[in-house]
């Protein structure tokens, strides 16, 4: 229904990049105050409006200065005093110059407003902050903070510390300020938006040179970026099939297949199998509440791992387009190099206390054969290629061993059904997301299917976002298809794995912020404490990380399974030079704060 | 006084129909349908009270109040000493009421469901209100009642209301009321659609029942001749009020009221032709 070369918001289609809104329609579209937590930001404000002091290089997994001109420099050995500079020559979208005063103002605003949800975080971390001149910021932290850039820069997705313009915000009450239209620092500014929250139109700033993107990359080509929501997947697919949208976020493999067949201009991350980008920084698996019997026993968790035929799970989940991971960090390119591959030897030799060696290095080869039999094209021919694609291997499917492990802790098999040590039938519920995070949802069903075959009465309970999150936080679950805990993007895996520390464990019923598996392992906690003391760039991080992962494998609080395959198709009708496997200059996370760097590299296709 | 209670006693009945509408309220619907009507049928007077009157004079209203299908604004009603309607006082329960009083409705075409075989009403009456024998086998009683009104079971069996003529339906209504053997039958124009010959048969039946079984009748009609023939006491109504009340002979021989005279005058007979 779009008329001659125009979008229905009145911009020339050729000059407009149309992007899916990750969360769908925004219910309160005129509220763009990033410091009020109920305001959705992924309609462009987060990706294009604000800039982060230190942005993440999604290829290398390391941070680089963005809004800041330099990485922070520690002024003392205890990592409490820091200094960094901000970029020169930048300006806000209303033309006012940007300076270190804005950074300081933002921090002070949070410090001085106890009612601001962000306040406590700042208070706990920053003791003092000041601008010594227009470009220099000095700050003092409450405690030693060697990984300062993790706290105030992007690691995954972005960072909540969003610098706001002092000249605007000093006149308003941040607790009620709508911030519409927002004055921003990114290369685009909000031009128009739908009062009903279906679309948001961003326009390239005339003074794009005075932004970090302009300085670091150059002029972005799209004059407009239109974020818009099309509703259910069917509609999103139709929209892309008829070239109404350029970038879709997160669809199912089935939908991608349809798109590929319908529209040759639609490209996925790979040009052939497995199509999906496999480098998402959170991996998928099944978590257990380690304080709830019988999942409090490592034997049980290990038995469940061995009762799982990972090949079938992979097929059922995403038709095999998955890279397996036997350890607790995602098998993304960077981490495969730092951990999975180096640890393979250890995995092969790893034995359970009774001497049984559970590792199975040949998942990749079996999958290669199986998929070739299904006449899937584009599979690597050689073993190395297969291993690179499908991962270093996984745990054996060995129901006999699983049975033995269970019987060793008092379980009994009655016919085809398992009885708990107390003689009652073993019933298990796996919490799964309903209709969001499709991979986790499907994984839960697929795993349940495996364990049912093994004789456990497993039931998958799909839950909507709120319930799913609440039960996870309060420990009101036996097992769950959760993914928050095992995320990492760079060789320093401390950021998320730190959550395994036992000090975060709360009693069941009370919300826990982290370690919601409620897994207590003194050794794990000890390693985490050691890692916390290492600066970001210290090579010992990997060494300690490896030790940590080994410890987690022994305990198996989560059965890690696959990296996350993200199907993020792009349409090359109007734009080209999207990042892809063969053009890997950024990861494909359109909803991360580094999206503006991707936009700046796109080229018109016509 | 013998000490026996009156068969029917109506005291100071008043009824004004409401206008209806959104709030159903407002009393000014029209003139009173019943305006302070009192009448009594004592056992010693006889068994049959006939009510004759102008169309729209409140006969049906009176009957329906006795049947508790319409609530009066004020007044009391009792049947055989049992209070049916009392201002604030005790009244008999529904079961007892149905044993005591039975209706024959004015419009036979409305008196039976379109969706049921008409015989069902006969059977249910026999089963619900009859004695033990009747409950066991209602057929004899039904056959008897049908025969009394000039019908037979085979003509009735399984038929719906539309398969009957108007007179047949009236006869069925009568038969049903007879099956119940109540103390009082309130018959609202029970034979208006029945020819003279059958009408006599039915009226004779009423007479017989009242004499043999002691069933009392409120016989609403505009047929003065059968009213006279049948009734022991007669009431003449006009515009919601009783204009005459007494023995039929007395009323008809020496009408005290213009309306009564007009009534007598207007009866079409074979021997006399109106001059139009």
């Amino acid at each position, binding site marked *: 229904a779009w008329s001659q070369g125009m979008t229905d918001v009145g911009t020339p289609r050729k000059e407009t990049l149309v992007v899916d809104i990750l969360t769908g329609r925004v219910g309160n579209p005129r509220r763009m105050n990033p410091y009020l937590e109920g305001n959705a930001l992924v309609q462009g404000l987060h990706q294009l409006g604000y800039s982060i002091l230190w942005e993440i290089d999604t290829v290398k997994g390391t941070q680089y200065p963005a809004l800041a001109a330099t990485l922070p420099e520690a002024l003392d050995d205890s990592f409490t005093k820091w200094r960094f500079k901000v970029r020169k020559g930048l300006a806000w979208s209303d033309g006012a110059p940007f300076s270190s005063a804005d950074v300081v103002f933002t921090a002070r605003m949070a410090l001085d407003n106890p009612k601001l949800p962000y306040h406590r975080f700042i208070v706990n971390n920053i003791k003092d902050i000041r601008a010594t001149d227009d470009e220099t910021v000095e700050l003092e932290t409450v405690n030693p903070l060697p990984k300062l850039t993790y706290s105030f820069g992007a690691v995954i997705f972005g960072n909540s510390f969003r610098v706001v313009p002092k000249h605007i915000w000093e006149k308003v009450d941040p607790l009620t300020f709508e911030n519409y239209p927002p004055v921003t620092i990114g290369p685009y500014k909000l031009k128009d938006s739908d009062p009903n929250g279906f679309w948001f139109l961003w326009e390239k700033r005339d003074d794009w040179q005075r932004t970090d993107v302009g300085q670091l990359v150059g002029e972005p080509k799209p004059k407009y970026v239109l974020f818009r929501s099309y509703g259910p997947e069917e509609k999103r697919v139709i929209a892309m099939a008829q070239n109404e949208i350029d970038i879709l976020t997160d669809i199912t493999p089935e939908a991608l297949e349809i798109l590929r067949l319908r529209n040759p201009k639609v490209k996925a991350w790979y040009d052939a199998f497995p199509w999906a980008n496999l480098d998402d920084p959170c991996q998928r698996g099944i978590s257990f509440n380690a304080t709830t019997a019988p999942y409090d026993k490592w034997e049980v968790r290990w038995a469940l791992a061995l009762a799982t035929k990972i090949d079938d799970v992979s097929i059922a989940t995403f038709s095999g387009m998955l890279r397996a991971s036997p350890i607790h960090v995602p098998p993304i390119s960077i981490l495969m190099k730092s951990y999975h591959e180096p640890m393979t030897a250890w995995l092969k030799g790893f034995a359970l206390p009774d001497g049984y060696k559970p590792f199975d290095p040949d998942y990749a080869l079996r999958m290669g054969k199986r998929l070739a039999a299904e006449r899937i094209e584009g599979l690597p021919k050689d073993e190395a290629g297969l291993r690179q694609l499908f991962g270093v291997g996984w745990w054996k499917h060995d129901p006999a061993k699983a049975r033995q492990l269970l019987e060793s802790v008092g379980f009994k098999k009655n016919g085809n059904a398992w009885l708990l040590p107390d003689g009652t039938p073993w019933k298990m519920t796996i919490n799964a997301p309903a209709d969001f995070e499709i991979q986790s949802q499907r994984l839960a*069903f697929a795993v349940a299917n495996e364990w049912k075959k093994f004789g456990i009465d497993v039931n998958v309970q799909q839950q909507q976002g709120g319930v799913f999150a609440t039960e996870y936080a309060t420990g009101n679950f036996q097992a769950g298809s959760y993914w928050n805990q095992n995320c990492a993007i760079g060789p320093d895996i401390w950021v998320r794995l730190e959550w395994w520390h036992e000090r975060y464990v709360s009693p069941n019923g009370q919300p826990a912020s982290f370690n919601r598996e409620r897994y207590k392992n003194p050794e794990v906690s000890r390693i985490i404490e050691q890692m916390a003391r290492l600066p970001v760039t210290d090579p010992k991080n990997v060494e300690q990380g490896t030790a940590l992962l080994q410890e987690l494998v022994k305990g198996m609080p989560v059965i890690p399974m696959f990296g996350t395959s993200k199907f993020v198709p792009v349409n090359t009708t109007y734009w080209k030079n999207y990042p892809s496997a063969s053009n890997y200059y950024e990861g494909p996370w359109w909803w991360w704060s580094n999206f503006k760097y991707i936009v700046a590299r796109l080229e018109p296709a016509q | 006084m013998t000490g026996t209670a009156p068969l029917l006693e109506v005291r100071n009945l008043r009824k004004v129909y409401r206008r209806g509408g959104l709030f159903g309220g407002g009393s000014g619907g029209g003139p009173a349908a019943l305006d302070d009507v009192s009448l009594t049928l004592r056992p010693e007077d006889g068994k049959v009270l006939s009510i004759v009157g102008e169309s729209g004079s409140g006969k049906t209203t009176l009957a329906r109040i006795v049947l508790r299908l319409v609530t009066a604004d004020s007044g009391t009603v009792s049947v055989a000493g049992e209070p049916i309607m009392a201002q604030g006082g005790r009244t008999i329960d529904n079961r007892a009421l149905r044993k005591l009083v039975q209706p024959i409705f004015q419009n036979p075409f409305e008196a039976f469901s379109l969706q049921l075989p008409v015989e069902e009403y006969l059977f249910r009456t026999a089963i619900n209100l009859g004695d033990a024998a009747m409950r066991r086998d209602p057929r004899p009683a039904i056959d008897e009642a049908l025969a009394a009104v000039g019908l037979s079971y085979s003509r009735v069996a399984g038929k719906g209301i539309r398969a009957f003529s108007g007179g047949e339906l009236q006869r069925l209504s009568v038969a049903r009321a007879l099956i119940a053997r109540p103390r009082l039958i309130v018959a609202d124009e029970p034979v208006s659609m029945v020819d003279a010959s059958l009408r006599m048969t039915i009226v004779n039946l009423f007479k017989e029942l009242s004499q043999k079984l002691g069933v009392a009748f409120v016989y609403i009609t505009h047929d003065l001749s059968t009213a006279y023939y049948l009734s022991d006491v007669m009431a003449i109504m006009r515009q919601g009020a009783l204009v005459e009340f007494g023995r039929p002979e007395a009323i008809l021989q020496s009408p005290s009221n213009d309306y009564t005279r007009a009534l007598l005058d207007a009866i079409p007979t074979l021997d006399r032709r109106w001059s139009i």
Partner: protein
Amino acid sequence: MRLPGKLALGAVLIGLIILVGPLAALVAPEDPRVWQTHPRNQWPSAEHLLGTTALGQDTFWLLSWSVRNSLMLGVSVAALATLIGVGIGLLAGYRGGMVDRVLSFLMDALIVIPSLPLLILLSSMTKGQTSLLAVGIILVIFNWPFPARQIRAVALSMRERDFVNLAWYSGESVGRILWRQMVPYLRGWAVANFINTILVVVAVESSLAFLGLSNDNVPTIGTMIYWALKYQALIAGRWWWLLPPIISIIVIFVGFFLLSNALADRLRVNPMAAR
């Protein structure tokens, strides 16, 4: 006339559904809930009458289980909700007064309360093991007030008719008056409500599935449609997965429609003539 034709067609359709549903489910050689028992996305063939799903289930056996469950749930919920609704609606309208006041309050309260949060509560209390029975009970509880409210209105008017009065004077109990005098006028309506409620039940199943509240252990027509959509059978053109449940629900509906109308016609006394 046409009646036997309708009756026959209705019977054939329902017979077909019973054959494909409950009967086939009885003899199913495999448990269609288990995934990956067959190659995925197979076209219909001699081996797999309706092909296989993207999860490697045999569509035919999946369909038969689904039809069986939906039929059981739908028919019993529809029957109960209609019976209770018509019964209570008639009672409230016919008796009036306090009875009506109390029953109307009940109806209104249930109509007013949205069932969705309650279903979520139920499913979270039972840890997702919500049985068909529990869902059925909730559905009955929330579906009877609608017919009741409508029927009450009819009863309010019908109680003023003389044949109802006559039945009352024939000594009929309240129950029989409602059943024999009023229900025949509403039989057609009740039948319509019954078959409509079957549809409502299937629709609720799929919206529950849509909200992630259905139990994966109990395949139903609604959930089957949901999963097919979820795996994009619609836009991928995998008709053999999506069409059978849709056709089933149409056949169930049309079958019951014909059957029940024909039966209602039979039961009805033609007022024109003898039976």
